[in-house]
């Protein structure tokens, strides 16, 4: 099953490599990974999506917690949560396809953020499966380039991941 794990870690050189190293060393898989400093400049927040059965996920969270630079770990998928991913996608947009792409982007609530006579670049924000759906709706023939940020997540309600 797919899990979204959020990690607060010390904003120090090498901290990220310890997390990434752990995944490769123990043969866990990383579907996506995002990381950036938080409002507290000494802390980074990292979100990793991974796939594994309960035993593997339990081991992942335990091992993450063991890393000295890791302050807190939470598996967001254990509770209600919101996930978002940002995608920028560059598309061939000429002739009849140009209007069609604009319509599809509107349906998905994407925004066109760059335009040339023959291309559109669309920005889309949503859960990963929405982004996947947009890509398949457009069809491979039109797609020139895709860049996705990886998933960020946050728990619903009053729960927080903080010190």
């Amino acid at each position: 099953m797919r899990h979204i794990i959020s990690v607060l870690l010390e904003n120090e050189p090498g901290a990220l490599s310890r997390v990434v190293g752990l995944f490769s060393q123990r043969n866990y898989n990383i579907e996506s990974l995002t990381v950036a400093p938080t409002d507290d400049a000494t802390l980074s927040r990292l979100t990793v999506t991974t796939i594994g059965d309960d035993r593997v996920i339990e081991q992942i969270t335990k091992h993450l917690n063991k890393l000295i630079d890791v302050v807190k770990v939470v598996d967001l998928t254990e509770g209600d949560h919101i996930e978002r991913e940002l995608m920028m996608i560059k598309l061939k947009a000429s002739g009849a396809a140009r209007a069609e792409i604009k319509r599809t982007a509107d349906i998905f609530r994407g925004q066109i953020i760059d335009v040339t006579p023959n291309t559109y670049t669309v920005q889309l924000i949503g859960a990963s499966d929405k982004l996947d759906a947009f890509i398949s709706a457009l069809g491979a023939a039109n797609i020139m380039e895709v860049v996705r940020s990886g998933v960020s997540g946050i728990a619903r309600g009053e729960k927080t991941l903080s010190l």
Partner: protein
Amino acid sequence: MVVRALRDEGVKYIYGYPGGALLHVYDAIFQQEEVQHILVRHEQAATHMADAYARATGKAGVALVTSGPGATNAVTGIATAYMDSIPMVVITGQVMSHLVGEDAFQETDMMGISRPIVKHNFSVSRPEDIPAVIKKAFHIAQTGRPGPVVVDIPKDMTTPTERFEYEYPKSVKLRSYNPISRGHSGQIKKATDLLLAAKRPVIYVGGGVIMGNASNEITELSRLLNYPVTCTLMGLGAYPGTDRQSLGMLGMHGSYEANMAMHHSDLILAVGARFDDRVTNGVDKFCPTAKIIHIDIDPASISKTIKADIPIVGPAQSVLTEMLELVASAKKQPDEAALKAWWEQIDEWRARHGGRYRTDDSELMKPQQVIEMLSKVTNGDAYVCSDVGQHQMFAAQYYKFNKPNRWINSGGLGTMGFGLPAAMGVKLNFPDADVACVTGEGSIQMNIQELSTCKQYDLPVKIINLNNQSLGMVRQWQDMNYESRHSHSYMKSLPDFIKLAESYGHVGMKVEKYEDLEAAMREAFALKDRLVFMDIYVDPFEHVYPMQVARGSMRDMWLNKTERT
């Protein structure tokens, strides 16, 4: 600052090898006497010496190696300590900080190289941080589940002309590291109830009991309950090996009775053990009728390979102390009739096989006989530092350890070349104790250069070289799985170990007949102030038994070359 911090940490000996990046530090070592430096002949040996000191005392050992090749030579030693959860602080020199990343002379990314084999590592980026970083390194290495910590120090962090205010911190607080200090009382209560209700219990003791200083507690609990005890390779000595309740070692080369008892048990109390693959054999067939209580300081060890029914995360000593109180005050006591029947069954297993080996199938001495003699000559009281291979298993099976911290071997990583430096590290710190290095002609040659260090620092260890002129364990697997095609497991042109020892200024003894063994060994141990290299010729065709059948259950064992369960 580095040397002063080590002094303030109470470090007496450091083991190392100088080099360009460490010259400032070595100059500081020269100008003081409190921290004594032992110059090894290869950095791997420095790490093993520090490691063995930690294994014998529970306190972190310290190794000091230079950048580049010095650091990479230390990698095997760091990994060895990591796999066995041994506290150690390894200080590695680094090129000057403005050169880092430029492929400078003797530069290597030690932070990157060591990351997967350390509990944590630090890179010093401001000289004034050195005392705090070293304090943190010791704190992390020695608390929780212990492990090695690397401190990488660029050369310009130790420039002697730059002066800083020095203060060694009295304590450390890390917001992201709070090792657990006791187990969950509710879980301990539940575990105790289950423990007392068991009909066929086994107590399975790992190295965590030794490093967690809980040998007394486990011994007391086992005796109070009259339950059988088996120790892992790392746990030997945690429970007295000559005691009636001891089943010896379990696992791949465990005793028949230990493996049978595990397989047929209805309750396993695992303490400070990690259900390693060399213990469990096939995990899907592991102890089908047993409920499992698992006490470990590391939550990640629990339910990693075998699911625990009652997990207890906490230090072995405090958890066992709580458990002892509960057992002592419990109304319900173990079912005596069931326990009596269980012991009868165990005694029957013991009688059926019980650690026997043949002496009549060869003219030559058996390696097991040598270990039994060593046990006899040293009254089971020596520090036995082993290398890796058949001799290691024979030592684990036939030397009867009655005290913890006496059996010093590379269990997890299985590092050949560990034995001699380990013996040196122990002898240096326990000069009056008998220290034996049990080795083979393969392993000893992996760090044989340390005979020179032994001479320089007067370290009269006794080397028990079980010479079978082959890499015995490799050969055993080739015999059993590759139709005896002995691919590269035979060493031609072995040195004359006697002359070799003598050339380093030591005493060499060659023993070829069992009749001569006892006298020679007594003579060797009587030479208190000399290193004696005993080159003992043993049967090259001997195998280690029992040996579990690959991917079988715990009870599936070869008992000798022709017979299996």
